[in-house]
C-alpha cells in the first residue's frame, strides 16, 4: 500500500481505518473532505477531479512520510478521489494512528494542509446554471482561514538600521550605491560578506581563488559540509544571493595579484582584506595607494587579532609605516591554529568598520592598530605615525609599483607527488616544524631529516649547495619563507612542499603505490 493513493473508485473508510490499526497505537484521527453544494456563492451540482498522477503520487507520498517522521506517529495514509463526484461524496481521506491523540491530530492536519498546497490535483466544478470552471484543489475542504499577510515589498528590510539617526534613509541609499571588494572568503570573509550583504550594500566583489576544505568549516561559517571541494568564491556568491537578492555579486575566483589588483581596486569604493597572507596584505597596501582606495585590514592568530584601517585619502600611516620591514614570516591559521569565533569577531569588526566608512559614522579607525585578545578581553589601540621615509607611501601613486614575486620565489613551490617517481629520491626532505608539532603529527611515510625552523641557522645552513632539498612545514608557509631565505644565500635547489606535511604524507603514499 502506498501512503498516498489516487482512487477512481469510492473509498471504503472502514477498510482504510483498519489498515492503520496497530497494537502500539492508542488513538486514531481522520479527516474527510466532502463535495459540497456551493462554492463562492454559486450552486455546485457535481465535481470532476483530475490529477497529474505521477507527480501527485510522488509528492503525496512524500507528505505523508514527512508527517510520520516529523510527528512520530505509528502510521498514516491518504487517499484522494479522481473522476466524477456528486454532492456529499467523499473526495479525500486522511487517517493517522498514533500512541497518543495529540500527534495524531497534528499529523492529520499537517497532511491535509500540505496535500492541498503541494499536490497537483484540480477540480472542475459544474454549477447548477450549466457553467463549469476549474478550481485548484485548495478549495476541497472549504475556504482557507485568513493567512497573515506576507510583506509584499521589501520596505521593512532595513528598518532597524534606518532607525538609527546616523543612518536614516540617506545612509541606506549610500549603502545601496556602495561597491565593496572582499579579498579572501575564509574565516574573516564569511561574517564580513554576510553582514555587508545583509546591510544592503549594493555591490560586493568576492575575490578568492581557493576551494573549500573540510578544515575550513570550523571557522568559515558561510559554507556547508556538502560543499567541500567547490570554489569558495562561487558558493559564497550563491549564499549571499540567497541572503540578499538585491545585492549584486561579482565572483573573482582567482587570487588577487599585481596584474589584476589595480583594476579590481578601481572598480570598488572600499576593500576588505580578509586574506591570510602577508605578501598579499602588502600588495593590497600598494594598490590602495595607487588607486586612493581605503582598505580595512584584519589578521588573527589563535585567540587574538589585529585590525587596521588604511585610508590613503586621509594621509594616515600605511601598512608599511606600521611594518617598515616587510616581515617574512607570520604564522597562518593552518600552522598556529585558531578558534572559529576569533576570525568571526574580527570579520564582524571589519564589516562594522566598512559600514562606518561608507556611512561616515564617527569613531572610524584611522592609522591606529586595534589589538584584541579574546581570551582575556585585553585590548590596545596603538597609534601609528606616518614614516617620512616610508618605502611605499612617501612616493606618489604612479611611482608605487605593485609587488611581484621576486626571482627567488619563482618555481619555489613543489608537490613531491607530482615529481617523476624515478626522481623523487634525489630530494632530501627536511621537516622544519617545531618538535611539539612533529610529536603531534609525525611524518611517517617517507625518509626525511628534522631541523626545526627555530634552530635552523641561516648564517651556516646545515645543507649542501648542490643538493636538491624539499622543505616541509604544516601548511607550506614557513617552508616557503625559509626556502626564499636559503635561495637568497645561494642554495638554488631548495623547494617548499605545497600544502605542508598533510599533503606530503598523503600525496606521497598515494603516488608511491
Amino acid at each position, binding site marked *: 500500500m502506498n501512503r498516498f493513493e489516487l482512487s477512481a473508485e469510492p473509498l471504503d473508510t472502514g477498510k482504510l481505518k483498519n489498515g492503520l490499526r496497530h497494537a502500539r497505537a492508542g488513538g486514531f484521527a481522520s479527516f474527510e473532505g466532502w463535495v459540497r453544494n456551493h462554492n463562492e456563492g454559486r450552486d455546485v451540482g457535481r465535481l470532476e477531479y483530475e490529477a497529474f498522477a505521477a507527480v501527485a503520487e510522488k509528492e503525496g507520498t512524500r507528505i505523508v512520510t514527512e508527517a510520520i517522521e516529523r510527528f512520530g506517529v505509528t502510521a498514516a495514509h491518504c487517499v484522494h478521489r479522481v473522476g466524477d463526484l456528486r454532492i456529499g461524496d467523499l473526495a479525500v481521506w486522511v487517517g493517522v494512528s498514533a500512541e497518543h491523540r495529540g500527534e495524531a491530530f497534528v499529523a492529520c492536519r499537517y497532511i491535509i494542509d500540505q496535500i492541498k498546497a503541494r499536490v497537483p490535483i484540480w477540480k472542475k466544478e459544474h454549477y447548477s446554471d450549466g457553467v463549469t470552471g476549474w478550481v485548484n484543489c485548495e478549495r476541497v475542504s472549504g475556504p482557507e482561514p485568513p493567512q497573515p499577510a506576507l510583506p509584499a515589498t521589501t520596505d521593512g528590510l532595513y528598518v532597524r538600521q534606518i532607525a538609527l539617526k546616523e543612518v536614516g534613509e540617506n545612509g541606506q541609499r549610500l549603502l545601496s550605491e556602495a561597491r565593496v571588494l572582499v579579498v579572501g572568503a575564509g*574565516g*574573516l570573509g564569511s561574517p564580513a560578506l554576510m553582514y555587508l550583504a545583509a546591510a544592503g550594500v549594493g555591490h560586493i566583489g568576492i575575490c578568492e581563488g581557493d576551494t573549500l576544505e573540510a578544515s575550513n568549516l570550523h571557522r568559515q561559517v558561510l559554507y556547508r559540509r556538502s560543499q567541500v571541494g567547490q570554489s569558495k568564491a562561487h558558493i559564497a556568491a550563491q549564499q549571499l544571493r540567497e541572503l540578499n537578492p538585491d545585492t549584486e555579486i561579482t565572483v573573482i575566483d582567482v587570487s588577487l595579484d599585481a596584474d589584476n589588483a589595480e583594476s579590481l581596486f578601481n572598480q570598488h569604493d572600499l576593500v576588505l582584506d580578509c586574506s*591570510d597572507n*602577508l605578501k598579499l596584505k602588502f600588495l593590497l597596501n600598494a594598490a590602495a595607494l595607487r588607486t586612493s582606495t581605503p582598505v580595512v585590514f584584519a589578521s588573527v*592568530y589563535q585567540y587574538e587579532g589585529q585590525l587596521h584601517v588604511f585610508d590613503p585619502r586621509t594621509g594616515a600611516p600605511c601598512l608599511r609605516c606600521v611594518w617598515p620591514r616587510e616581515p617574512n614570516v607570520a604564522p597562518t591559521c593552518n600552522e598556529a591554529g585558531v578558534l572559529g569565533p576569533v576570525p568571526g569577531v574580527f570579520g564582524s569588526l571589519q564589516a562594522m568598520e566598512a559600514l562606518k566608512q561608507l556611512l561616515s559614522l564617527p569613531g572610524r579607525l584611522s592609522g591606529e592598530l586595534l589589538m584584541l585578545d579574546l581570551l582575556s578581553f585585553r585590548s590596545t589601540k596603538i597609534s601609528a605615525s606616518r614614516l617620512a621615509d616610508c618605502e611605499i607611501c612617501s612616493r606618489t601613486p604612479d611611482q608605487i609599483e605593485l609587488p611581484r614575486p621576486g626571482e627567488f620565489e619563482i618555481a619555489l613551490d613543489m608537490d613531491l607527488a607530482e615529481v617523476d617517481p624515478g626522481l623523487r629520491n634525489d630530494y632530501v626532505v627536511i621537516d622544519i616544524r617545531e618538535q611539539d608539532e612533529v610529536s603531534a603529527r609525525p611524518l611517517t611515510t617517507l625518509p626525511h631529516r628534522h631541523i626545526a625552523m627555530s634552530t635552523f641557522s641561516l648564517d651556516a645552513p646545515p645543507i649542501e649547495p648542490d643538493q636538491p632539498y624539499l622543505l616541509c612545514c604544516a601548511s607550506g608557509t614557513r617552508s616557503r619563507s625559509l626556502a626564499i631565505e636559503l635561495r637568497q644565500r645561494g642554495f638554488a635547489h631548495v623547494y617548499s612542499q605545497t600544502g605542508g606535511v598533510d599533503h606530503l604524507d598523503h600525496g606521497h603514499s598515494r603516488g608511491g603505490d
Partner: protein
Amino acid sequence: MTQVNVQYYAIFREQAGASDESVETGATTAGELYAELCDRHNFSLPAAALRAVVNEEFADWDTPISDGDRVVFIPPVAGG
C-alpha cells in the same frame, strides 16, 4: 634599574608563557629591553620582524624607557 610593564601578544604570549609581566630591567631603550627578554624567554623572532610599542605608540628601538612605561612587542600576524 627601571620597572616597566610588558604585554605579550601572539607568539610572544606563547613563548613567555604569560600575557604580561612586570620587569625590572637595566635596559634603557626598547631595543635593549627586547634583547634582555629574548635571553630570558628564548624569543624566536628577530627584532627586525616586529614592532615595539611604548605607551600605546609605535616606537623605534632606540626609544628610551622609563619607570612605569607600558611596553608591548607586536609580531605581525596573518591568519584569516
